[in-house]
């Protein structure tokens, strides 16, 4: 961060423009309690606060994002997700959200289990590595670089990329019950061949039996 402390550099995002935001909001009833892990600048929480009147908190590690969250008027706790969610009590939230962060977590299994300790339900969104454009990139001999995956192989934070099928197998093995799924490409929902045609997946799940 620069020494210039002019707040002008923090452009406060007004409304959520990401397609997964609307899909997530559609699952969340008015007045629910929400924990958003890796909440970035807080724009999802702000969107949920404005559209669903949620009681929300975010967890974020990045300094600039912490300031953005505060400027966005959302509660944010500066902490590293990878060190667990020990600040949060069992069943203290209706929903725990991991939006476009799953693929960048190191201890993914532990985190999903923590999500379902703290929350009644979990929601994750992630870029579908099985999307046809990604497959095409690989066929052409390159790692995919796109709007959803904007990094080069050498600077990507994404260490755990997966396809829809991979995630569903993971849930099955972790005794996580999937309640709902939305697969999107841009703002369009993909019902046909989602693992091939969808670029972003959003899942809602709870503890399985």
């Amino acid at each position, binding site marked *: *961060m620069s020494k210039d*402390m002019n707040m002008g550099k923090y452009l406060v995002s007004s409304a959520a423009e990401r397609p997964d935001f609307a899909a997530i909001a559609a699952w969340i009833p008015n007045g629910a309690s929400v924990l958003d892990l890796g909440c970035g600048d807080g724009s999802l929480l702000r969107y949920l606060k404005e559209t669903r009147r949620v009681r929300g908190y975010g967890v974020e590690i990045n300094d600039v994002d912490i300031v953005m969250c*505060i400027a966005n008027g959302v*509660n*944010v706790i*500066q902490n590293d997700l990878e060190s667990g969610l020990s600040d949060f009590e069992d069943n203290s939230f209706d929903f725990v959200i991991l939006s476009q962060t799953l693929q960048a977590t190191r201890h993914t299994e532990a985190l999903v289990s923590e999500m379902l300790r703290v929350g009644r339900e979990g929601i994750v969104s992630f870029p579908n590595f099985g999307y046809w454009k990604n497959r095409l990139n690989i066929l052409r001999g390159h790692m995919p670089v796109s709007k959803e995956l904007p990094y080069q192989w050498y600077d990507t934070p994404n260490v755990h990329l997966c396809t829809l099928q991979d995630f569903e197998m993971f849930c099955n093995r972790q005794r996580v019950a999937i309640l709902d799924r939305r697969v999107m490409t841009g703002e369009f929902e993909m019902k046909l061949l989602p693992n091939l045609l969808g670029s972003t997946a959003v899942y809602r799940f709870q503890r399985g039996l």
Partner: protein
Amino acid sequence: MNTTNSIGIVRAQRAQFDTPLVFRSGAVLPRYELVYETYGKLNADKSNAILICHALSGHHHVAGVYADEPKNVGWWDNMVGPGKPIDTDKFFVIGLNNLGGCSGSTGPSSIAPETGVPYGASFPMITVEDWVESQARLADRLGIKQFAAVIGGSLGGMQALQWSLAHPERVRHVLAIASAPRLTAQNIAFNDVARNAILTDPDFHGGDYYQHGVVPTRGLRLARMLGHITYLSDDAMADKFGRELRTEQLNYGYDVEFQIESYLRYQGDKFAGLFDANTYLLMTKALDYFDPAHDFGGDMNKAFARSKSDYLVVSFTTDWRFSPQRSREIVQTLLHNRRNVSYAEITSTHGHDSFLMEHPHYFDVMRAYLDNVASEVSR
């Protein structure tokens, strides 16, 4: 931000209180004075007031300078002023010297009207709760029913927390910086060593040294030296002093050889010349006693159940006297009670002292939070 943008010339004011104050210990102070300063303008509906609570050795002179002392800059002048994070163009900011202090408010070195000699050892043991009550009376005097925010670092953060527990309706926002919900055994232990240095000084005279024309300088000096070590981080000390010597060679004696020794002795001497030993004792005891959970069977969650405020909690990575973990305990209690709370952990090398220093992320966090507070109040 313009760091030289000072509030400019300020002046201290006094408020006399003639209604007896009953302390938590049961002691009664029949009358007392508080010295305070204010910056900025109180708005028409008196909703833009911010109270700054000071730490162990702080006082009412928070920002600006005095007309006759242009070099006497307030202790938080980098944070408080026009266009600064605690913006005096938007807020009416109050700083006071706490009761029991030695900067103008009634304290052990003040003359007791009943006896005509300084209170000394007879000054009541004071707690954070007692301070908040005395501050509430000052707020009443100034016509402030509700503070936009109460802000403090360290022991000041404890007062800010206590405000939201004692007067939930009177505080919209609490900013607790480098603070803790209560001290740990280690922290009490440091305070006890500091107190023992003073209490065992032959010039202490049971606290009534004023009449003997002496000051327990040695004790106070040692207390401050110990305190100072705990306010800095190992890294900060290593960076600033390392093993640097004052002279070219080792002298194999007990005089000052290493630069750190020189620095600590200088800090100790400076402090001992300015501060009152009895006040130091009182302040450290107030730190030790503070425990909102005490009346709730040790359950901090229950203690905070009555709070209605929103909170900003800030800690510094290298602060080991009031570590980030202690701030996170505050956050956990607030989460349990479903309060609005944000928490920032500032990466800083300066240990506990970080809360007094200018740091971009720290100041950005404060500014962003207080901008929102400002938007809630009318101009």
